[in-house]
């Protein structure tokens, strides 16, 4: 293995010169980001900073005005099976006729490809994932009859059965009680310890250093990237939040 190859293998996500605009309004401006493999990273920034947009652009859900994204050194398209995604809560119709197990099974659809139906094995994997997030008892529940925290855990389980190398999660702690929050963090840390890369949109600066190794601070432009302690400085926060920093 040549050094260059191993280098690109150690960078899980690489974003170069990413610029995004909704109509004429720039939402992301010239973002460069390299996330090493095996870190648990938070994307931090004020509301409207473009965090969701960044994730969606990385996942190819939005078309950037310029720039490119690579996953393990290759374009996203060829690598999508290494990527798991937990969308922002509330983006689905909760009254949809489906139960928790069914939702989690959807995480296998990417592996199944066209036309193939989920097998017994896929269902077992889904049950397993539900168990890991502590929701095995709720497998048959219609999703609207779950609490906010339970719904979030179901969506986490759905990403888990994708068996990805990199996970993206958009504000998984919104509307979640303290106990569930700790459970989810525990699962994320386990994933990290298994060598997976986890990237989470987060907006509680208080818990940042407790939960995460790395942070990416941004507000339209990138402000800092690196270990949490290096990123969260007075100066950086001021650059991101202006005068209205949450804790300092």
């Amino acid at each position, binding site marked *: 293995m040549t050094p260059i190859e191993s280098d690109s293998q150690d960078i899980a996500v690489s974003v170069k010169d990413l610029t995004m605009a909704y109509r004429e309004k720039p939402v992301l401006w010239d973002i460069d980001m390299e996330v090493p493999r095996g870190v648990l990273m938070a994307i931090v920034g004020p509301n409207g900073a473009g965090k969701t947009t960044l994730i969606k652009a990385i*996942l190819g859900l939005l078309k950037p005005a310029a720039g490119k994204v690579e996953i393990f050194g290759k374009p996203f398209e060829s690598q999508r099976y290494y990527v798991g995604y937990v969308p922002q809560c509330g*983006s689905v119709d909760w009254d949809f006729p489906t139960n928790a197990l069914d939702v989690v099974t959807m995480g296998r659809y990417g592996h199944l490809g066209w036309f193939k139906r989920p097998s017994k094995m896929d269902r077992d994997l889904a049950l397993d994932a539900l168990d890991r997030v502590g929701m095995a008892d709720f497998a048959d529940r219609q999703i609207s009859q779950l609490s906010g925290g339970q719904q979030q855990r179901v969506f986490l389980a759905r990403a888990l059965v994708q068996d990805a190398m990199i996970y993206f999660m958009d504000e998984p702690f919104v509307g979640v009680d303290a106990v569930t929050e700790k459970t989810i963090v525990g699962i994320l840390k386990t994933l990290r310890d298994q060598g997976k890369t986890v990237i989470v949109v987060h907006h509680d600066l208080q818990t940042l250093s407790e939960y995460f190794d790395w942070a990416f601070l941004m507000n339209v432009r990138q402000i800092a990237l690196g270990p949490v302690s290096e990123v969260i400085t007075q100066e950086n926060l001021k650059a991101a939040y202006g005068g209205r920093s949450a804790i300092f």
Partner: protein
Amino acid sequence: MLSFDYTLIVVLFGTLILGLVSGCLGAFALLRRQSLLGDAISHAALPGICIVFMLTYSKHPLLLLLGAAVAGWIGTITVMAVVRHTSVKEDAALGIILSVFFGMGLVFLTIIQRMPTAQQSGLSTYLFGSASTLLLNDVITMAVLGAITLGILLLFWKEFKLLTFDRDYAQSLGFPISRLDILITTLIVFSIVIGLQSVGVVLMSAMIIAPAASARQWTDKLSVMVCLSGVFGAVSGVIGALLSGAISKLPTGPTIVVVISIIVIVSLLFAPLRGIVWGAMRQRRYRDNIRFQTMLTNLMLFSESDTDPFYPHDIAALTAIGRGPARKAMADLKEKGLVVNPEADMWALTAAGLKEARCILADKIGGASHD
């Protein structure tokens, strides 16, 4: 009097197919919040039917259906384009397509009615539908198109389910969502045009919405919902056709719609779990329960300060701090043996009542510490 002759069997098959297909696809239309798109599509189909007839002078069912499908499809695409490219909202876009396309259809229809060919009579049955005009040829065409539609639905079942439930996630898994959108919308268009001859353009939208709206009330499982919706559609189609065959001058489309509407009403009110009636009863029982509990615990709390737990209290005092009509609640409690009234308007706990009240209080305190 009805006799099950050949013509009737053909008609029944036709309405069965139409109900089944529109029911199954309607379930997806409902979940995709495209219910009213059905209204626009079915109205938009009219000019398509007319143009095909004017061009070919043929009433071959396949040609007419294809004309209807193309026009319905153009209508749908136009709605999507208007919503996407302008600030006009979906409701207005649907209304525009519905009325303007239908208006064009009327213009063509009046032109056709003046055409010298004897063939022209019959196109206006597409307004309100007439199952009795279904011929074997029509039904075969419907069956083939219906089978193709349902076949594709089954083939792409997993993809459609994911697309309908969570678009963003489907896209992140690499499914081409706009192409799937177009595919399922096309299937919905086909399910509508299949029924136009029997139900008519004016009312066909009901056959998309109503079976699905009923089915949704009975189940929380997509596959069951789609099947049930197909069954409801088929049943209403067949019953409607039978009725309109038996009673003279009873138009098929409206009859089918009345039948399916009755199914909707029953489902909305009485379906297990989701039925509105059961919901209201649960709500009431819950409120009654709260009231009973308040009464019992109040009686106990009053009494304990009096050291005699079975001390009778005046109804006026209970009314003052309880909720709702106290007299009725006490009468109900008495029936359960939890309270007694030794004299008029004086009420006291029984031993069972005291036990119950203690339980309630313990529960309340225990429950509070949970949060």
